[in-house]
């Protein structure tokens, strides 16, 4: 039985690395006494598969993992069993059984919605965003696996909205395509011509686009759990 789990990464735990989060989950499934399947071989590992990595320091309310279990479990109540085995800030918000032949989390996601909280006057941010969006192409240099390459960022940006949060703080909401090329939030932020400022990055949603162009979250989480104001105050200067 393969189970897909949606979880949050909020607060202090945003400073954990992808690898740290993986190890946290390995321990959590053991603590929760889930009958997790193990790989064969000299050094058996629990069969836990993660989605797209989130950079250290970024928060998220849409992280995912798949777990292979040796036995069937009741999905109702699974979140309540697993969440207490996780550190504060990592909470299970949705659970679903998926077919073992389902596309992997690494490949299934087509778009990601991000929120960037920036310590910039909203008017300034609006102007900078408008300037970026008016360009036909935005060549940026990205580094992948140790090599630099120049690619066009513009086609990946589906939407980039600005709203005022305070006199000196703006919230940018970006929808970024992950295919054919996935960009990191920092690469997008760097492409926007903002004055130097503190910024925070928050992943809101990961989307699957079906053959008809319909858009749905990988797993929908109940509205009540999605808090858009989860970020602590931004410290400017």
């Amino acid at each position, binding site marked *: 039985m393969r189970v897909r789990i949606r979880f949050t990464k909020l607060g*202090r*735990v945003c*400073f*954990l*690395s992808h*690898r*740290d989060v993986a*190890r*946290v989950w*390995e*321990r*959590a*499934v*053991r*603590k929760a*006494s889930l009958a997790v399947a*193990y790989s064969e071989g*000299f*050094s*058996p590992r629990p069969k836990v598969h993660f989605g797209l990595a989130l950079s*250290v*320091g970024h928060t998220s309310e849409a992280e995912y993992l798949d777990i292979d279990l040796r036995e069937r479990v009741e999905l109702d109540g699974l979140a309540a069993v697993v969440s207490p*085995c996780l*550190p*504060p*800030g990592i909470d299970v918000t949705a659970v679903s059984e998926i077919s073992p032949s389902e596309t992997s989390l690494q490949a299934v996601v087509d778009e990601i919605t991000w929120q960037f909280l920036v310590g910039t006057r909203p008017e300034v941010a609006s102007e900078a965003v408008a300037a970026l969006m008016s360009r036909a192409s935005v060549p940026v240099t990205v580094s992948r696996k140790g090599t630099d390459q120049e690619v066009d960022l513009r086609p990946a940006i589906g939407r980039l909205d600005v709203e005022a949060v305070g006199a000196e703080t703006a919230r940018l909401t970006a929808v970024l395509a992950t295919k054919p090329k996935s960009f990191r939030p920092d690469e997008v932020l760097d492409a926007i011509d903002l004055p130097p400022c*503190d910024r925070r990055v928050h992943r809101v949603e990961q989307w699957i686009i079906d053959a008809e162009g319909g858009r749905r979250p990988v797993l929908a989480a109940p509205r009540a759990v999605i808090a858009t104001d989860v970020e*602590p*105050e931004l*410290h400017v200067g």
Partner: protein
Amino acid sequence: MTSIWARLEPLLAKVQKPARYIGCEDGAIEPAWHPTSVSWLLTYPDTYEIGLPNQGLQILYDIINARDDAVAERTYAPWIDLEAEMRAAGVPLFSVDTHRSAQDFDIIGFNLSAELNYTNLVNLIDLAGVPVRAAARRPHHALIAVGGHCTYNPEPVADFVDFVVLGDGEEIVSEITEVVGEWKRSGRESRTDVLVALARIEGVYVPSLYDVHYDGQRIVSIEPNRPGVPERVEKRTIADLAAWPHPRRQLVPLTEVVHDRLNVEVFRGCTRGCRFCQAGMITRPVRERPADQVRTMVLDGLRRTGYDEVALTSLSSADFSGIESVVQDIIDDPTHCGQISVSLPSLRVDAFGVGIAAQIQKARRTGLTFAPEAGTWRMRQVINKLIREEDLYGAVDAAYSQGWRRMKLYFLTGLPTETDEDTRGIAELARNVVRIGKSHHKSPSVTVSIGGFVPKPHTPFQWFGQNTAVELQRKIDLLRDETRRERGIDLKWHDPAATLIEGLSSRGDRRLGDVIEEVWRRGGTFQEWSERFRLDVWEEALAKAGLDLEWYVYRHRTEDEVLPWSHISAGLHQDFLWQEWRDALAEVGLPDCRWTPCYDCGACTGYSIEHVVASAVPPAGGSQGTGQDLSVGVSVPVMLLDRRPDAVGPPQEAS
């Protein structure tokens, strides 16, 4: 506003491994502070990865937070990138539990387990906003305390600390809390008052209450400078480990640390009597935890933490009575589906047989480390590590036969009376281990790790002049030549320059305070880290202080010399240590007093305590240094051979 998190968080975005600083561990406590609580900031003066697993601090954290009148939080040394950001932003040292400023705490208590951390101690005192010299502190400043193995010669750090705690901390931490609580409630007026009160607790040493008198370079005497202060400070020893099943909630970090597994201490103390080993001398006698308590702590701990590995810790875990059945019960426990691996750090080769090898290989195997320590039987008689080559070969054969491929062998070089034949013996042993491995696997690999020997206080070798850095390098080069063409041997060694400064800090006196402070002022922190270690800075600081490195490190001491730690007692009689030193030079061994009659080293008789061991006989397997074939239920007295047994050669040649 008690948390500095809001000021810290923006800095964390700029540094490596920010998860070091967030706390949030499973088992962490956010204690409730009251105005009258005595607050401890338990501090490990190295990075989070090194410091978090420290069991001593976790035990104290557990005990203090269980009290109504005290709170304990933790901190570790921020790495240099964060330190620079903190200093630039005016952010003080903080706890990782609730991110409180170190200035909020009454006592900052450091674990000192490595001498090269002394400059970090000074740095953290400074980051805490406390004057680095104890003499400059005022009543509102935190009390700076140190404990841990290094404190058996606390003199190099005497000027920086307010008080030193010797020995087991389980009981004394409460006595200290009560004295400091009374001082706090009475208005916290005079620092001297509280220090004098603390000095009355057995096991507490207050350096400022003692004067050291010199005649030129030599110490003439070390004496209390006021009445009511003991001339000699005795260590504390808990009689029964069973009464202290701590830590009850081991901390599970969210980011990777060393020894990242459940750790359960199965016994404290060791009486094997290895003469180089400070831990084995200062932690006597042996106090075993009852096997049932071990089982409970392991199984409860695994369930609570989610770890899939447990280490049964002690100075020589294979010596634990009934070790095989305990390991078997852990591995066979149905709740963990056979996925638990058990590691036994500090395995003695003479107690490692196929039985244990077969047990601990059932789940995942990690590497195995054996510590023969010296390359020849003669050398091992000098250091009283009485394992035969056959014991080593039998152990590695057992391990290879059970599927291990990677083996690590740990040796010391620079031991008393060591000759080049002894040094070459290390290469010989390693070659034979590879040869045994080849009979089981195609390409066995053996890591040979060479440490330069540093004579330690309260050991029979405390009088020995350490090998020079040049001599240690020569011996390492000799081994490199010997093993260069050996496929399967990977030689690693410790920098002799760092060994030199470890030697300086291990047996130095109070005058080294100026040197440590100067090295710190020149940025010499994290000296345990080879990329940060700077011998030239130490040499310049010594020159500035007018102190002679060679006099401190390379000189043999005489029996009548007043050693800098002569007012500190680990319970061992001076004449026992001296006799052991003479016996070492005469290549005479000493049996383990756990199973043989008492030779009165002083540790039991002085404190009216005894060994707590479940078995009156040594564990099965190997010779236990006796040359006899010991099996379970042996009842003959275990006596040492005074010569090397005649049988030679690895076991696969005999068969």
